[in-house]
């Protein structure tokens, strides 16, 4: 068998394009995935026209937000282009220089300030988007919605703060400035004290009863308005999420992305190589000669499985070593992910052997490999909760018949301690090696 394996490796070496692909492919994939994992999402470009008069601040609840702060809030999240007019901002969007424009109207400060007054007006900003890209619009919409939600929460918090100050004034009393004039507010507590003082001097039982009712009201109002403080705080942020995680800790997104990349590379390289290599034995008429007393069909199959395992594992190793330049790989867990990669390679090699033996032609084997691998791999990536229970069961059963999902689980678990358990997927892979190996052996009878 070793001579057959050596022969296959010699043939592989003789094909510079194939050999180059086997080395360059995992490196190229690692570069692409590595860059995408280490770079954040591209920032959208947004034109900003702030029509508020220079120096004007957004004041409410005793706190103020100036124009620069508004600008910083926006430009932290997107790339800003300053515009000098609504028309300029709109034309920047039309020309495609900006994905969207945010126009802050002249009276925004006034309207926000009115929220804390007796005649509140609804503050509005204008958002202009270019309708030519649905996907980009969706992204911009999401970002602007998020920014507005944040701004509204900030304003609501500050309004609540202002409300609490007014309530405190009503409760405790103090000075209040309105239209430049300072007014003294007595406050409920002081009112109650004054009424109690007056009541002690009143002799008329009817008058005394009326004063008693006024004192009861002041007492009740004081006690109940004390509750307004926490209520206003609650209104400004009615629901707070307290996230509690149960069950096994999920692997990091980076680990999952690495495992998906490695499994895809492993699958394509191994299945295509073994299927093509076995079909080539037939196309080059060597199979008949080999089996005419030189080696058994089982030995040929074992040689192909060995070839696929060695090359597939080498590809995973090159890929992970290249990815290590971008994201940390847990080399301490190498024995586990090496075992996972070896078993995955063996299972994919068995699939390739079954396909090569069944098709008996390199082209047909290649086509069958692609047509079989892609749907299984994509189905394996469908999250369990994304479909109904029936479809979920169907997908689970179907994907269990192909090595992609167990190989992915084994690699994810091998790469990160918080990943899924590795031993069950490894056992699953071993079973698939036996099943597909058996199918390949049966197909080789009529090869």
């Amino acid at each position, binding site marked *: 068998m070793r001579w057959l394996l*050596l*022969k296959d490796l*010699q*043939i592989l070496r*003789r*094909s510079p394009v194939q050999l180059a692909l086997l080395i360059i492919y995992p490196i190229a994939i690692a570069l692409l995935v590595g860059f995408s994992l280490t770079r954040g999402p591209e920032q959208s470009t947004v034109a900003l026209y702030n029509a508020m008069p220079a120096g004007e601040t957004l004041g409410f609840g005793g706190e103020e937000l100036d124009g620069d702060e508004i600008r910083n809030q926006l430009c932290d999240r997107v790339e800003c282009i300053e515009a000098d007019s609504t028309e300029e901002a709109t034309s920047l969007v039309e020309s495609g220089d900006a994905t969207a424009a945010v126009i802050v109207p002249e009276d925004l400060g006034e309207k926000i300030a009115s929220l804390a007054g007796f005649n509140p007006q609804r503050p509005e900003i204008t958002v202009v988007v270019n309708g030519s890209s649905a996907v980009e619009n969706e992204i911009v919409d999401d970002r602007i919605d998020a920014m507005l939600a944040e701004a509204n929460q900030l304003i609501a918090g500050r309004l609540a703060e202002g409300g609490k100050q007014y309530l405190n004034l009503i409760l405790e009393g103090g000075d209040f400035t309105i239209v430049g004039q300072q007014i003294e507010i007595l406050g409920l507590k002081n009112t109650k004290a004054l009424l109690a003082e007056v009541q002690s001097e009143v002799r008329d039982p009817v008058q005394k009863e009326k004063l008693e009712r006024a004192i009861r009201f002041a007492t009740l109002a004081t006690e109940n308005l004390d509750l307004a403080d926490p209520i206003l705080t609650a209104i400004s942020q009615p629901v707070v999420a307290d996230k509690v995680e149960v069950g096994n800790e999920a692997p990091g997104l980076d680990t999952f992305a690495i495992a998906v990349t490695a499994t895809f590379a492993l699958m394509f390289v191994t299945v295509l190589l073994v299927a093509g290599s076995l079909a080539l034995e037939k196309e080059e008429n060597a199979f*008949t000669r080999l089996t005419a007393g*030189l080696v058994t069909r089982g030995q040929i199959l074992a040689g192909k499985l060995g070839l696929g395992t060695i090359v597939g594992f080498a590809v995973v190793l090159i890929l992970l070593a290249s990815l290590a330049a971008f994201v940390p790989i847990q080399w301490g867990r190498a024995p586990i992910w090496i075992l996972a990669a070896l078993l995955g390679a063996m299972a994919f090699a068995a699939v390739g052997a079954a396909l090569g033996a069944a098709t008996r032609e390199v082209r047909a084997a290649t086509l069958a490999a692609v047509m079989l691998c892609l749907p299984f791999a994509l189905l394996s990536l469908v999250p369990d909760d994304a479909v109904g229970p029936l479809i979920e069961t169907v997908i689970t059963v179907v994907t269990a018949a192909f090595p992609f999902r167990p190989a992915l689980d084994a690699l994810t678990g091998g790469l990160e301690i918080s990943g899924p358990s590795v031993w069950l997927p490894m056992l699953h892979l071993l079973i698939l090696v036996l099943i597909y190996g058996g199918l390949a052996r049966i197909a080789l009878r009529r090869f």
Partner: protein
Amino acid sequence: MTEPRSTQALLASGIVKRFGDRVALGGIGFEAGPGEVVAVIGPNGAGKTTLLTILAGITEPDEGSVESSGGGVGWVPQQAALYRRLTVGENLLLFARLQGHDDPQAKVDQMLELTGLAERQGDQVGSLSGGNQQRINIAVGLMADPAVLLLDEPSVGLDPAQRARLWQFILGLVKTGTAVVFSTHDIQEAERYAERIFVVADGSGVFDGTATELREAVVTPAGPDGNGVDLETSFLAFLKKAGH
């Protein structure tokens, strides 16, 4: 395959092979002596290749037995069964190793000398001419020093010069005592190189003898110049007479 009881290099008897309901070979007997050259001829689908693959031990017969003398049988398929991306030397070395030779490199050197392709040993097989590929193909068949060499249409696709060189090579083997059995559609080739002709038709062995005996088996009209007719005409007349 067992040792023949006779002095024949190869002895097959009562060979039956069925593919489903179709009977490909219906009880054929065949023999070849040491150093003998036998041509197996017959129409397309007659069962020539099936017979040869059974004689080579590649296909199991449903009935009958095949026996060969020490050294066994070497098989040379119709199309070169070689790895095109490997060099001549690497191909020979691979098969020498698979044959289990104690000194595979010595065997390779011997085969390179035999084929006259020593200077091409570093060339990839895919870059060789059809004739040279066939020489390597035959050399691989000879790797085990077989008593009988079975060749399935060895000269297909070769030009006359390549064919002549190939036969020069094969006849050189015959001188060393190797029995050569080959199938062909080229009746002239059979007449020129074979000592004996074995005709297969519809899965049966319908003639076994020399070219002269085949001619004598049928009465055919004289040629345009008044001389005897060519073997191909006699062969066709024989098949017609035998109801094939």
